[in-house]
């Protein structure tokens, strides 16, 4: 304080000058500029903070965490051993007001099949000792989450048993797991692919049979011949099915043949079919390079694999693909619709009360809650349009085809939702096309439509694309309406595949936004699903940003091509 007070008195002149200076500053009349900067700073800080949080949490999921082995006092005073990963450290709030504040750990122990609960809170005070043993393994399995263990022995398919102390043990185990993975994909290709095709064929034969029975124009002999033909075909398919089913069950049996015996950290010994294992690693024994490899492998699995264990494990490829295809379909629907509407409103409609009313309505449409669009989509697209299509073209199918939610109706619903954005942006883009070049085109003998098509639209294209980009960004992140018109927790097949007709617009699909909701809030084990929520959120953001960047690149390219007049 004292130095502060002394400073001005020591130098008499400068304070006067600075006062004059500051007066001059305020006299300019912009003393509140910093307020606008404050708003921007706050906005940027929030956005960057959110992105950073999601990025860090999302990316750390894939990095191998160290395994800790703890000796800790149990409630009965006995010392027990647990091993696992520290997921969170927080302060412990004791019921006793006099207790000293302490920390507790959220500890992931895995081995849900053996000990029931994969997570446990551990009071820091109870820990006697901790170490990071290199011989601890962690295994990803098809069921019950991860296992944390020390291997004891492996009995292979040919009946031999190798002890963990054997130098060839690790190589043999890795080979067995690799074989198991190969067999698993074989089983999948048989059951999903080949048997799936046979099922489709049998369903189709059933429909044919119905048709033949219904057709009154057929003679009895004809009908019998056809039915016989159908039955023969069905028998052939059934025989094929039997063969494949035997093949699959043989493979399944083989999956169960090899057994890995391991010891849990608490001393329990268990046996596990090697066929259930997906990958094993020793995080404490890994070098940085090994960790990086593991990390990249995890990211790859996340991006390309299908989900396991009610979506909490494995990858999210179907959701990425579903989001991408849905957004693309939506853009394909909304762009022509919005642009045509904007052309009419701006170029052809007589500007008056009616057009103004329409414009206001369109603007207000953007403010309608998205769930309302979902309900509308369900009522109009799914039940009315889809139901009518089913009646007309799929009346023989066993269930609804288009009369139930699907990717087409989801895209159409979101197209309606984002239509105002495209219309408004397109109208503005059309209005900003200079009058001069319109007149020039007309003076060259072009008709009004030729002018619009050859001059106005190309010039307005960058602006129109801005609208489409905004629409895509909004549509890709929308969840609520999708829940009513076709998104599902787990879709058995992708909307695009190699079976004719390749694009299955009637299929249900998975979506990243819904995936986040489902994982975070509908999952039986929300703590286990949490890392996936962050990773999926990160991916959704990356996907939206990527699609936007691509559209922006296109827009800049067009802007350069159709640069407005340089004066």
């Amino acid at each position: 304080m004292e130095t502060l007070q002394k400073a001005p008195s020591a130098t008499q002149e400068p304070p006067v000058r600075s006062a004059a200076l500051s007066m001059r500053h305020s006299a300019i009349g912009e003393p509140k500029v910093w307020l606008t900067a404050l708003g921007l700073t706050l906005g940027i800080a929030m956005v960057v903070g959110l992105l950073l949080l999601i990025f860090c949490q999302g990316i750390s999921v894939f990095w191998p965490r160290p395994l800790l082995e703890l000796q800790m006092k149990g409630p009965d005073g006995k010392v027990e051993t647990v091993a696992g990963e520290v997921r969170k450290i927080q302060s412990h709030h004791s019921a006793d007001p006099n207790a000293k504040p302490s920390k507790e750990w959220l500890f992931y122990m895995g081995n849900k099949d053996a000990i029931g609960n994969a997570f446990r809170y551990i009071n820091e005070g109870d820990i006697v000792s901790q170490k990071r043993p290199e011989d601890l393994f962690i295994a990803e399995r098809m069921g019950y989450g991860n296992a944390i263990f020390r291997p004891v022995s492996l009995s292979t398919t040919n009946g031999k048993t190798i002890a963990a102390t054997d130098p060839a043990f690790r190589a043999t185990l890795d080979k067995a797991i690799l074989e198991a993975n190969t067999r698993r994909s074989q089983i999948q290709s048989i059951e999903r692919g080949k048997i799936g095709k046979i099922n489709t064929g049998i369903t189709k034969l059933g429909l044919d049979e119905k048709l033949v029975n219904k057709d009154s124009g057929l003679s009895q002999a004809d009908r019998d011949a056809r039915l016989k033909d159908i039955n023969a075909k069905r028998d052939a398919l059934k025989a094929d099915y039997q063969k494949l089913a035997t093949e699959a069950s043989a493979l399944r049996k083989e999956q169960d043949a090899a057994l890995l015996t391991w010891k849990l950290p608490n001393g329990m010994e268990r046996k596990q079919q090697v066929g259930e294992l997906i990958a094993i690693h020793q995080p404490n024994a890994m070098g940085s390079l090994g960790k990086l490899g593991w990390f990249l492998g995890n990211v790859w699995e996340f991006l390309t694999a299908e989900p396991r264990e009610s979506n909490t494990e494995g990858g999210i490829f179907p959701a990425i693909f579903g989001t991408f295809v849905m957004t693309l379909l939506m853009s394909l629907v909304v762009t022509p619709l919005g642009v045509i509407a904007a052309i009419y409103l701006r170029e052809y409609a007589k500007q008056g009360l009616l057009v103004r009313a329409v414009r206001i309505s369109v603007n207000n449409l953007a403010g309608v809650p998205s769930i309302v669009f979902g309900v509308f989509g369900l009522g109009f697209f799914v039940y009315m349009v889809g139901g009518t299509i089913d009646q007309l073209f799929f009346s023989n199918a066993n269930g609804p085809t288009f009369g139930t939610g699907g990717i087409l109706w989801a895209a159409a619903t979101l197209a309606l939702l984002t239509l105002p954005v495209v219309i408004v942006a397109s109208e503005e883009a059309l209005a900003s096309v200079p009058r001069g070049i319109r007149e020039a085109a007309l003076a060259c003998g072009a008709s009004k439509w030729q002018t619009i098509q050859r001059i106005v639209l190309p010039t307005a294209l960058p602006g129109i694309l801005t609208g489409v980009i905004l629409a895509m960004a909004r549509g890709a992140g929308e969840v609520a309406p999708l829940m009513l018109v076709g998104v599902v927790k787990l879709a058995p097949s992708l909307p695009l595949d190699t079976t004719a007709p390749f694009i299955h617009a009637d299929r249900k699909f998975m979506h990243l936004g819904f995936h986040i909701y489902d994982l975070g809030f509908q999952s039986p084990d929300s703590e286990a699903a949490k890392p996936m929520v962050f990773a999926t959120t990160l991916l959704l953001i990356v996907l939206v940003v990527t699609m936007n960047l691509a559209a922006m690149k296109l827009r800049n390219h067009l802007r350069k091509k159709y640069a407005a007049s340089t004066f």
Partner: protein
Amino acid sequence: MNEGTFSASAVPGPPPEASGPNTMIEVDHFHFYYGAKQAIFDINMDIPEGQITAFIGPSGCGKSTLLRNLNRMNDLIDGVRHEGDIRIDGTSLYDPSVEVISLRKRVGMVFQKYNPFPKTIYENVIFSLRVAGRNKKSELDEVVETSLRGAALWDEVKDRLHDSAHGLSGGQQQRLCIARAIANRPQILLMDEPCAALDPIATLKIEELMLALKEEFTIVIVTHNMQQARRCSDRTAFMYMGRLIEYADTMQLFEAPNEKQTEAYITGRFS
């Protein structure tokens, strides 16, 4: 202003001599209204073929409106109407059998602000052919060359025909617009203050170009620049407040105007 001084029904100045050029455009008792506001009052004039006719007059005198009626560009504005008639080669512009599009093919136009399309130089020139459905490559190439030569631009752009037109300088862009306007071989070329946005050197080039082009086209030019009218045009019309005050051979109008108002305007005593 004394209404009687310029009784509009009588065309001031001597009529074109019988031995002179044919009449290309006849404006016959033409009135024009923007909604309730009348912009042009009872104009009569004959514009001769193969000559340059200049419209001069202060801002808002109706000269641009009259020019834009010659290819019916004013039709684009809501609430306009006209009385009287304009005939080209004896056929009324407003005849129901006349299509606006074919009319505009016969009457090309160059605007005050150069306005090339955001396309390549090549596509700019042949735009009128493209919209007419003429897409034969050899024909288009030929038209591009003749039109650009006609607009004295060929030598400057022949190596970059497929570059954007917006890379050209202002004067070049305006000449490109002239090339675009003459690509369709119109009979008449309307120019609405073609040099208003250009520097003196570019202006000079355009003026030289007009003198060359009048061999082939009947040119009607609106200009604010009296020197320009004097230098280039064969006949000049002075308009004021929507009326045609005086219409005569350029030399006569500038050297010995019949009307006091004309004299006052060309000597700069009012604007």
